[in-house]
């Protein structure tokens, strides 16, 4: 059961991931993405579950099997990173070592994630992107079978995001992980994942490769952008409206009749069908 703004909602999903796959989970907030990830990790117990990983049963409510979090071969990256404030970067990684583990992996990960200069710093002195890299490295120390990422990049700016996507891809490939990542960003899904699940109100709405899933509404001959009008200028008999969207300024042509509806500062939608842009006011 999910506790959402609309009351209780059943979380009812079933899916399989191939070994080595990169699965993205996409959906609005409150649809059960994080709960799903926590159930996989064993942090949340559900009423009826069956989770099997490489022929090993992790959860089976019928036979009352519930493998503890500690015994699941997982790496979990939390949304708030959850770095231990009392330990340095290096100690955070070393904490994840088990009794007879080779300590080599810690220095290897520090190098791979380019944390050499930060290894003796405490987490509270790091930037968001740096914390993220430490959290990612720490989750890999145990060489888990499955890496679970709960919106790891949502708090970062675009530049940092792109860089960290590369880090994630790098470790996913190097350590032959099976990765499950929650994300809100469609470009991120295309860049990283082989498979995507869209969750809606606790159910799987769509599932498949990113291009299969997003082909209909998101990518078509039509594009849509939202932005803000920054200027309206007259040029001969037509008007040119400048719309600021993302980091771009788009110029759209409008007739005198059309511009009556537009004001500077208004939020607008710019859509194009077959090279014929349409511009309309957002309510």
């Amino acid at each position, binding site marked *: 059961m999910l506790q959402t703004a609309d009351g209780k909602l059943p979380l009812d999903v079933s899916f399989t991931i191939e070994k080595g796959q990169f699965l993205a989970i996409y959906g609005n907030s409150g649809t059960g993405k994080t709960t799903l990830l926590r159930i996989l990790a064993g942090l949340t117990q559900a009423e009826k579950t069956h989770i099997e990983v490489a022929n090993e049963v992790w959860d089976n409510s019928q036979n009352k099997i519930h493998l503890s979090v*500690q015994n*699941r071969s997982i*790496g979990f990256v*939390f949304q*708030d990173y959850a770095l231990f404030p009392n330990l340095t970067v290096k100690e955070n990684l070393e904490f994840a070592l088990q009794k007879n583990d080779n300590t080599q992996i810690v220095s290897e990960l520090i190098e791979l994630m380019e944390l050499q200069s930060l290894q003796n710093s405490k987490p509270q002195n790091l930037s968001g992107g740096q914390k993220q890299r430490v959290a990612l490295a720490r989750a890999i120390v145990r060489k888990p079978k499955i890496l679970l990422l709960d919106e790891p990049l949502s708090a970062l700016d675009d530049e940092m995001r792109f860089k960290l996507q590369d880090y994630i891809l790098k470790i996913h490939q190097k350590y032959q992980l099976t990765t499950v990542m929650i994300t809100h960003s469609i470009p991120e899904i295309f860049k990283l994942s082989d498979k995507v699940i869209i969750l809606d109100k606790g159910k799987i709405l769509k599932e498949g490769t990113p291009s299969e899933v997003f082909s209909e509404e998101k990518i078509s001959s039509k594009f849509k952008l939202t932005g803000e009008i920054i200027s309206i200028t007259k040029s001969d008999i037509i008007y040119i409206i400048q719309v600021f969207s993302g980091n771009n300024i788009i110029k759209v042509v409008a007739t005198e009749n059309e511009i009556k509806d537009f004001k500077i500062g208004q939020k607008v939608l710019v859509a194009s069908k077959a090279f014929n842009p349409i511009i309309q006011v957002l309510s």
Partner: protein
Amino acid sequence: MIDLDPLWLTAKLAFITTLILLLMAIPLCYWLAYSRFRFKAVIEAIISLPLVLPPSVLGFYLLIAFSPENAFGKFLSDYFDLRLVFTFQGLILASVLYSLPFMVNPILSGLKNLPTTLQEASFTLGKSRFSTILKIILPNIRPSLLTGIIMTFAHTVGEFGVVLMVGGSIPKETKVVSIAIYEEVESMNYDNANVYAGILFVFSFSILLAVHLINNKRKTALY
């Protein structure tokens, strides 16, 4: 010259009480902070009761309970040969109950302010509950632990009502400084009372100063 026994007895009582409470409060607070027990509020209210209850009320009930005339006291005396009325052991038990909120409240609020993901992260890294508490949770609430220890120690030193009810005033057994002051005043030895009072005054002030210094440091140190 004042008798030094009450000072020594007070220090011993405060030290033992603080130690017992620290060992008790850590598991208790951990349970209160993380469990979903339905009647948690009731337990928290009971723990905080000594904050508002007149010490003489608590002392009175303990006196009744400990008395060998009654079931609980008789049980202790028959099976464990333990007498809690007018003994040092009785004082320790009374102090533990009376100072409970002073240890529990800071530790509990420290735990509640700690993000739960820290504990979960430790679990996902394969660490047991015990090693998580020892290596992650306790080090990250160190200021709260220190506040709890200092406040408990100071509060035990300052006890009067409960001690008087349960312990009476037996030299070298239950006559602590606060009782000694009262008795010196009763017998008009103002000079001695003054020395005892001065020592407690300076002590209490230093303790509070230490707590505030720790708390100010915490604000700058964490996050």
